[in-house]
């Protein structure tokens, strides 16, 4: 009886995943709201976020810590369980995930949607060998039930993520591997079931800079190979520039700007995005010329009025009207959305190139 139900579930989940492949927009997030209850107080961490993931493309979710970007990523997979109230809609192909039965949702997690966690050292069970942990996932999603063949399959996965001695790594405990290796293992597990969507939450933040570049290159490669949609959560503008096709900038739980990476980074339409870019250290710029954004972002438990721009207190373009009315996310140019009605579609700023040039001239002088 229970076996029959399990089989039914599996075929249904497989069906959902196959159907998702037919849609150009594999994953659609609409008006997503995530709220937690802490000590009888409602804390809204994400408010009205819209995202569209397309097969073969990378969407970068950019923002400071506390902006709600990681919460958004986790809420898509419903990882918070009953501790969070999720509003709005998350659709995989044509299947609504926010109301999907939990047992089906388990088939979606790791099956249709893979996730690469932030801290590779914490993402694996410290007491079990790497091979056993990969095989467990393969068995769970019915990729390979047989232990021996599962191990061979796992070895293949490790080779695919650039591990040259899969035999040793399969037999290793997580603590015997370097951070970069562990992250490769985590990626291998995430892609084990050929997911349609890969969510990576700050996948390179805990890694050395040289390893970061390798891991980012690996993401791009795997994405092309498997034709996945990639949602990459990061606070790092540099990472966005390297791997992103599109970018969505978050601030205080809301989207403030979206568009293609090239355009948004070249001509930001929201003062916050511009602030992030100005705060970016570029080679040749002396420390004194970095323009930090004053103040700090509001924490998720701080009350943010729904009738004011959350960024206004830190914004150098802020007008009195900014604290009385929250600018909606509107199209400022074709394919570009921004939530600021003061700067009129483009933030006037010193171009990074000029900043670099000035710095270089000063250095020469």
């Amino acid at each position, binding site marked *: 009886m229970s076996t029959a139900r399990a089989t039914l579930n599996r075929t249904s989940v497989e069906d959902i995943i196959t159907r998702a492949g037919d849609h150009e927009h594999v994953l659609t997030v609409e008006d997503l709201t995530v709220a937690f209850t802490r000590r009888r107080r409602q804390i809204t961490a994400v408010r009205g976020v819209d995202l569209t993931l397309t097969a073969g493309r990378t969407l970068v979710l950019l923002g400071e810590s506390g902006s709600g970007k990681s919460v958004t990523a986790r809420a898509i997979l419903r990882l918070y369980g009953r501790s969070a109230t999720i509003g709005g809609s998350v659709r995989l192909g044509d299947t609504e995930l926010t109301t999907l039965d939990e047992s089906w949702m388990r088939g979606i997690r790791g099956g249709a949607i893979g996730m690469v966690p932030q801290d590779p050292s914490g*993402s694996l069970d410290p007491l079990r060998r790497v091979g056993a942990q990969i095989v467990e996932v393969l068995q769970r999603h019915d990729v390979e039930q047989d232990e021996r063949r599962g191990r061979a399959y796992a070895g293949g996965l490790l080779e695919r993520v650039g591990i040259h001695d899969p035999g040793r790594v399969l037999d290793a405990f997580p603590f015997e591997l370097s951070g970069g290796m562990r992250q490769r293992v985590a990626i291998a597990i995430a892609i084990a079931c050929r997911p349609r969507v890969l969510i990576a939450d700050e996948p390179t933040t805990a890694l050395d800079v040289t390893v970061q570049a390798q891991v980012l290159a690996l993401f791009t490669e795997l994405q092309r190979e498997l034709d996945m949609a990639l949602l990459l959560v990061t606070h790092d503008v540099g990472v966005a520039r390297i791997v992103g096709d599109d970018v969505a900038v978050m601030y205080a739980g809301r989207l403030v700007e979206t568009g293609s990476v090239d355009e948004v980074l070249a001509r930001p339409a929201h003062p916050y995005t511009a602030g992030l870019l100005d705060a970016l250290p570029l080679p040749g710029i002396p420390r004194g010329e970095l323009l930090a954004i004053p103040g700090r972002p509001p924490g998720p438990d701080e009350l943010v009025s729904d009738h004011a721009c959350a960024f206004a207190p830190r914004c150098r373009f802020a007008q009195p009207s900014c604290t009385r009315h929250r600018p909606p996310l509107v199209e400022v140019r074709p394919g570009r959305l921004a939530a600021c009605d003061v700067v009129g579609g483009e933030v006037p700023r010193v171009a990074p190139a000029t900043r670099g040039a000035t710095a270089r001239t000063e250095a020469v002088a």
Partner: protein
Amino acid sequence: MTSFLTRRLLLAIPILIGVSIVVFITIKLIPGDPVAALLGPNATPQARADLVARMGLNKPIPLQYVDWIWAVLHGNLGTSISLQQSVGSLVLKAFGNTLILLVASLFLATLGGVVLGTIVALRPRSVLGRIVSSTSLGAISIPQYTVALLLLLFAVETGALPTGGMHGTGDGSFGDLLAHLVLPAIAAALTPMGIVARMFAVALSDVLAQEFVESMRARGLSQAAIVRHAMHNALPSLLTITGLQVGYLLGGVLFVETIFAWPGIGQQVYSAISSRDMPLIQAGVLISAVVLVLVNVVVDTVHALVDPRVRA
């Protein structure tokens, strides 16, 4: 693994030496004259002097220790003053009985503690979780003698279980032993069970808060599989917790033995103290202390077997 075990065993040697010194000195410090106890009040000074010389009591204390430990290492624990039998065989037999009670109550305390702790860790805010949590606090707070007396009262009133001794019918059947074991084991196990429950609940919730648990959820693993992983990870803490409880449990068992007339080392040492039977007291205390040290070696070894990071 072999090198780990060798290292751990070598480390136990100085501890055992220290333990034996403490036991020896403690016995020396106990008021009372074993010679007087042996010979009675009417002994002649000559008889006294002979006995003192025969027992080596005229030698310097360090030398007495060396003599004693040398004999102990050769399996000679001396002769009981009151029973005029070899202390070694007396203590060994009694300790076997104590071990039965110790293992039974350790089993109860660990099993009960793990079950209760798991409920609290998995459902901390549920009604069941709260009830279990306060029950284990209650188990810790009730003094052992109250528990023992309540159990005795229960047994006498209902007549369901034997109230003392190890065997009733004398046929030595396992069922008979088990029936006699129930009450003393519960009495000794209750407090450690509460402690294990509370500490294991904390250990398991710590593991459940670790990042790999969320990662496993994100991989689609079932709740049962995740709890299995988490339990495995909480096992080292459980070992440490129960290892610590063995000491407490041993103390409790020795006490409970006297109440339930369990013919173990506790009862033996208790009667040896009243008859100033120094060799018997000494051997009883020594064997209890040595067992504690060995239990710790076992705990560390199992810990290393469970956690690869420890044995590396």
